[in-house]
């Protein structure tokens, strides 16, 4: 930096005359605030395409059962499909430990005070993970129905998970997350007889926000509906191979 005027010209030792613009200038930008994240997300997407990896971004409120759904899926399908997992949490490696126990490759990202994963974090996590070709990568986002909605990670599909112990009006309260997702999993349906959750109303709200949303009803505890989720994963893998 030039010590005389503070400008960022490093090629000279003395203060030779160089061009300054000390007049008022308007700079038209129209630059997307999320451009950097979106560019890195496209880079991740290119990596996934080249290696034929189905990357899924799993989003939900805390406690909807994302990790339980993953544990169950990995145990049930690991002889059929190669998996790897990126776990996002503010603190601890508890979730990564649970995934590791299933024998699956996993990287934990701790966001500290951060409320979401971004494409840059995924880029670095991928370097350590080394997912195999023709595999599925689950990215379990930070439990939060607000902030992760804005951040493209390069995923192929965004899967939003809700559970019947939450209010059925979550889609209306947090519309952005539902609007940007392509599949909605309603979890813990084994608890329906014990909670006042109105399943039909929930589906109506989901479709108000995202009319084309596919909805699957599952229970990770008794296994109900999980086969439809597995079929969905298999069909996405086939689509990937054809493309």
């Amino acid at each position: 930096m030039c010590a005389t005027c503070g400008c960022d010209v490093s090629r000279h030792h003395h203060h030779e005359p160089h061009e300054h613009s000390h007049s008022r200038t308007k700079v038209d930008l129209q630059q997307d605030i999320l451009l950097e994240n979106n560019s890195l997300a496209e880079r991740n997407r290119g990596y996934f395409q080249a290696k034929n990896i189905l990357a899924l971004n799993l989003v939900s409120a805390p406690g909807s059962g994302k990790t339980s759904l993953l544990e169950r899926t990995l145990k049930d399908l690991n002889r059929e499909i190669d998996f790897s997992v990126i776990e996002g949490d503010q603190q601890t490696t508890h979730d990564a430990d649970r995934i590791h126990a299933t024998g699956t490759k996993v990287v934990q990202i701790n966001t500290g005070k951060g409320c979401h994963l971004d494409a840059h974090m995924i880029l670095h996590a991928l370097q350590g993970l080394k997912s195999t070709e023709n595999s599925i990568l689950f990215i379990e986002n930070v439990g939060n129905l607000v902030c992760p909605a804005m951040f493209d990670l390069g995923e192929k599909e965004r899967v939003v998970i809700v559970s019947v112990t939450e209010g059925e009006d979550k889609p209306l309260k947090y519309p952005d997350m539902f609007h940007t997702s392509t599949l909605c999993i309603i979890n813990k349906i084994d608890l329906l007889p014990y909670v006042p959750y109105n399943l039909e109303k929930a589906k109506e709200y989901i479709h108000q926000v995202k009319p084309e949303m596919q909805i699957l009803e599952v229970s990770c505890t008794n296994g109900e509906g999980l086969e439809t989720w597995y079929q969905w994963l298999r069909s996405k893998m086939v689509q990937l191979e054809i493309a």
Partner: protein
Amino acid sequence: MHELSLILNIIDIAQKEAIKANATAIEEIELDIGCLSTVEMDAFEFAWNIAIKGTMLESTIKKFNRIKGKAKCQHCGAEFSIQHLYDPCPACKHHVLNILQGKELSVKSLVVS
């Protein structure tokens, strides 16, 4: 609090442009923030005042263009304004909509000197 992440991006974009223009000060910044974007304005203002300290934006005048939500019904073709992503078409009550505007999040312009 994703507003803070957005603001850090804004600071980065603005400072890079100011340096590129050989400027030493950013007098004004104009931001387009759509009403359907996930930005909570109170949280944005709060985070802004903290994040700009020690940056070129510390004494910059900030202008917002709040762009109202507008959609086109894919069923009947009507164009109308919306406040929420789940608003139905006022003409035919369908929910299959194309969002035409309101999701903007951009740095529109700077005044540098």
